[in-house]
């Protein structure tokens, strides 16, 4: 097993512990997006606790902010704060580790949580880089359910208008949302064609939980000039925990003790 994949499964174990301790969070989406976050933070992006206040660090926005749980364990692993404290206090009384990204947490760029905001903010960040001739890149992670928000399409237009090749969106396409499949609730398909018709460079990761495929996709995105890129990551909601995979009830389900032990066992087996 390669180092990134190992890390993504170690971080899955942290997410499961955090979710179980807090009896809160969005476990299904956390497990679909964790490989994307792992690849970005540990292989692709130039951002760490030492350069976070520098003007030229890479920007990251989790537009599907309800998967803050996954972001927090990744930021903790990256050294922005004590990861165990995040796991122990997530969603608890007076904790800064609330259910959505917020700037009280070191490493978070801007407050988010309401869907359909991140891409426009990312356009602004990428525009600022162009204005100042800075080389940092801006990464925005969206959910496929979130693609029903119309504001995304305003931002998609602007990103193309300003040829923001320093902007890279990712759609965590896990095909499920709180009420059912995205096809049942409000289909955003075909997303690749939508982005392409808006003038974006579209890169598909057929297995969006495969770290090697994601690394390859982000390298292609960085090499594309003159237009923004999107990585459509075909993921599995609940990936890595057998009984959660592709089950809508695990959008924000909480585990019994028995389920928790089974989830940990599933992950430990992969790590072994």
């Amino acid at each position, binding site marked *: 097993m390669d180092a990134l994949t190992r890390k993504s499964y170690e971080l899955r174990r942290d997410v499961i512990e955090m979710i179980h301790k807090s009896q809160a969070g969005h476990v299904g989406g956390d497990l679909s997006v964790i490989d994307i976050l792992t690849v970005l933070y540990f292989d692709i992006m130039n951002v760490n606790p030492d350069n976070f206040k520098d003007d030229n660090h890479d920007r990251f926005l989790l537009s599907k902010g309800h998967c803050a749980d996954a972001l927090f364990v990744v930021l903790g692993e990256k050294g922005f704060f004590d990861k165990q404290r995040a796991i122990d206090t997530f969603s608890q009384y007076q904790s800064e580790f609330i259910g959505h990204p917020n700037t009280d947490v070191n490493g978070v760029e801007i407050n988010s949580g309401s869907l359909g*905001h991140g891409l426009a*903010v990312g356009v602004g960040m990428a525009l600022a880089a162009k204005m100042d001739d800075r080389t940092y890149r801006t990464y925005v992670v969206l959910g496929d359910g979130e693609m029903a928000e119309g504001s995304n399409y*305003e931002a998609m237009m602007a990103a193309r208008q300003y040829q923001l090749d320093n902007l890279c969106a990712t759609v965590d396409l896990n095909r499920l949302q709180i009420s059912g499949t995205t096809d049942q609730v409000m289909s955003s398909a075909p997303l690749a064609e939508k982005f392409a018709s808006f003038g974006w460079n579209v890169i598909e990761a057929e297995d969006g939980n495969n770290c090697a495929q994601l690394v390859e996709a982000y390298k292609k995105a960085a090499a594309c000039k003159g237009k923004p890129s999107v990585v459509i990551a075909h993921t599995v909601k609940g990936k890595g925990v057998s009984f959660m995979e592709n089950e809508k009830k695990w959008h924000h389900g909480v585990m019994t003790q028995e389920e928790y032990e089974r989830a940990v066992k599933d992950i430990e087996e992969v790590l072994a």
Partner: protein
Amino acid sequence: MNKITNRQAICDCLLEKAKSDRNIVVVCSDSRGSASLAPFAETYPGQFVEAGIAEQNLVGISAGLAACGKKVFAASPASFLTTRSYEQAKVDVAYSGTNVTLIGISGGVSYGALGMTHHSCQDFAAMSALTGMRVYNPSDRFQTTKLIEALLKDTAPAYIRVSRSATEDIYDENMDFTLNRANVIADGKDVLLVACGEMVPYAKKAVEQLGEKGISAGLIDMYCLKPLDADTLVEKARDVKLVVTVEEHAPQGGLGSAVAQALSSRCPRRLVEKNLPDEHLISGTNREMFAYYGLDDAGIVKSVEEAL
């Protein structure tokens, strides 16, 4: 009669300040002409962003620019800016504390006969309700310029409403201005008028007319709706029996509400709130509407006489 609008004063000020500050950025939504910001776009194309007719995008992009060190002025019709992009104002600007000044142009009933879609009689209430947002409605071009200069010195979010037409000069370039301190235009013993924005010149005329009738009226220009300058308000209200607020806004959540809230806890006084009614408004120019709804000098004088 002054011909320079407050929106033009904003552009002139930003043009001047941008000479030495490359971080000043203006963002418009196909509104550079109506915001009088076309000269800025022409002079500093690298510091101007066109968002198209997409107000949510306008505010989201502005927040992203500000999060990367820009001092952003986002100008769009007040009606659309404060409702279409309300959640971006709440989350990306107010909650996130980004250095964005939202400029609502053609505020209140500036658009006259264009009707209710284009009126913004709710913007004070909407923006005041956002934690982290400051709300201003300057009266004349000099106060507007001072306000922009002051906002450039800090990094907190703000909303400014300006109207479409030029307002009579109240001050001059040497006026006293402290951010969040109201300007006291007149002291009075019988009644205190509290006005903002385009209502201030009418209130000033009303003070003169009341004086001719033997009624001593004071006047506060409360351009700072949030944070309201309650200290100046209470200090001046202590001397009088009656307080009258005058605003180009619906009855809920604007200047009258803020003044009532401050007075009721610190200096209870009889209060008459003059505003636009909570109903679909008549067609007409803004000045015709002010007269119809009793917000002009004659209407203010009449209300004071009836109440005293």
